[in-house]
């Protein structure tokens, strides 16, 4: 069952004729070199970038849905986050409830527990390490309880253990009848945690499908210009440039 359907999405020269869909319970990984259009696509879905083409959320055109209702359904975790003020961790997570206009204490507590930040709720966000902050930003999105979670490079600034923790959490979230679309540079992690992959190259869709169909020598050569060692059978899968 489709949560999101994208038809011939285009943004200037950055993204051209991209069509794909996100299913319930699925983690869809967006891959591509820098400038391939990963963030642009997520921005279109998050309602912060104008686009050509059509995006459907539950069979309803995204641009026809009131902004607030869209935000209740689609949560967005940007590539880098920063709080202008020294807000407490609890207040940052509560901001995730803005689309709903409430302060649902249960949702906030659940999000804090899921990301393991419950112990720091009263601490100012600027006193946490980068990795700790990344978990709080994710908790903020989870507090909004969106059906679709968009994450732009959610593990870029995390250590190895945190990377696994966050990706497993996103996977668990998706399994709960939701959908997760995330951009990621680490191909091994993408192979391990994503159900399907979408490979973008210079704003166009190069490959879309199950991991084994997308992470091929030819595709990686075209998209990244690398000769890759690919072993998807090992546990965990390994995809590395030689």
């Amino acid at each position, binding site marked *: 069952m489709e949560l999101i359907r994208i038809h011939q999405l285009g943004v200037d020269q950055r993204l051209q004729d991209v069509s794909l869909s996100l299913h319930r319970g699925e983690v869809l990984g967006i891959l591509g070199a820098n400038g391939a259009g990963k963030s642009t696509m997520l*921005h279109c879905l*998050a*309602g*912060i970038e104008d686009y050509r083409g059509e995006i459907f959320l539950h069979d309803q055109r995204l641009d026809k849905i*009131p*902004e*607030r*209702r*869209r*935000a*209740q359904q*689609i*949560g*967005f975790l*940007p590539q880098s*986050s*920063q*709080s*202008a*003020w*020294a*807000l*407490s961790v609890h*207040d*940052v997570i509560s*901001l*995730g409830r*803005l*689309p709903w*206009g409430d302060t649902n204490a249960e949702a906030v507590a659940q999000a804090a527990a899921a990301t393991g930040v419950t112990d720091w709720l009263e601490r*100012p966000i600027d006193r946490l390490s980068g990795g700790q902050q990344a978990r709080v930003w994710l908790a*903020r999105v989870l507090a*909004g309880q969106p059906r679709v979670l968009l994450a732009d490079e959610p593990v870029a600034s995390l250590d190895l253990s945190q990377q696994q923790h966050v990706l497993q959490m996103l996977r668990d979230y998706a399994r709960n009848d939701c959908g997760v679309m995330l951009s990621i540079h680490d191909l091994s992690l993408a192979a391990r945690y994503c159900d399907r992959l979408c490979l973008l190259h210079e704003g166009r869709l190069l490959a879309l499908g199950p991991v084994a169909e997308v992470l091929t020598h030819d595709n990686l050569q075209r998209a990244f210009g690398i000769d890759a060692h690919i072993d998807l059978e090992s546990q965990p899968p390994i995809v590395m440039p030689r």
Partner: protein
Amino acid sequence: MARLITPALLVLLVLTTLASLAVGSTSVDVLGGLYGFVTGQTSLDTIVIGEVRLPRTLIALAVGAALGLSGAALQGLLRNPLAEPGLTGASQGAALGAASVFYFGLFPALGAAAPSVAGLIGAGVALVLMLALAGSARSHMVIMAGLAITTLCGAALATVLNFAPNPYAMQELVFWLLGSVSERGLEHLWLLLPPLLAGSLLIISQRRLLSGLSLGDQVARSMGLNYRHGSFMIVLGAALLVGSSVAVAGSIGFVGLLVPHLLRPLVQNRPERLLIPAALAGAILVCLADVCVRMLPPGRELKLGVLTSLLGAPLFIWLVWKERKRWN
């Protein structure tokens, strides 16, 4: 603590208002005078309270609230603790409008209210120019366009001063620009109130946006907040507030910058919770400063704007020092 801040400031506001009504060159019965004014009696107390101290107090409160609120709103919108109401260009626009009255003798029929009316027009023109130049309400564009219009109005103001017809006109203008709420009547308050109410409503209607903007405009927009429309409303509201307050009371420095800065820790740094306390504290601060002005020994009056700057600058230096220690 955060819950108590607004009630505590309200109590302080009432006390400040009563003090402001009580302080002056003659000793009067404040409550009796107020009652007499409301019931239309004519006694000395009634005249002193109703025609001198009440307008002065209310204007000081209104101007202070306008500066505090607009400062808090702009700092929240631009996500910059150094943003201040003058950034919109409306402040210099109002000063230029008022200066034109002294220079060209505009609106003679309006009498003492003429500089304020011209100031309002000047603030409005500067605001329209700034918003047209900025194109969007992106924070850096507002700062750049505001700076450009402020510079333009400053240059025009300097030209007016340069060619002032006589030294007295120039002196009058300079004193007016220094900021004061003395010798203002209720007609000034009626002039100030509509833009003040409109500006406050515009800003307060965007509380959710200010809250979401803590995490940047991308996050705010992804949470369904209309950044383009909302930030335009905040800039418009702030410019209305500051333009009208400068038009009526001249330039009163540091209130819009310092008040939000001082109160921020007391509201857990939440920009949307800062608005009302900043308005109340701004009102208290300007009114108290005006009481101080009146308590100084007789002679040449120390202008209110000069006093707020004299008090504000050391406070600001202290804040910079505190901030520096935090980062070291």
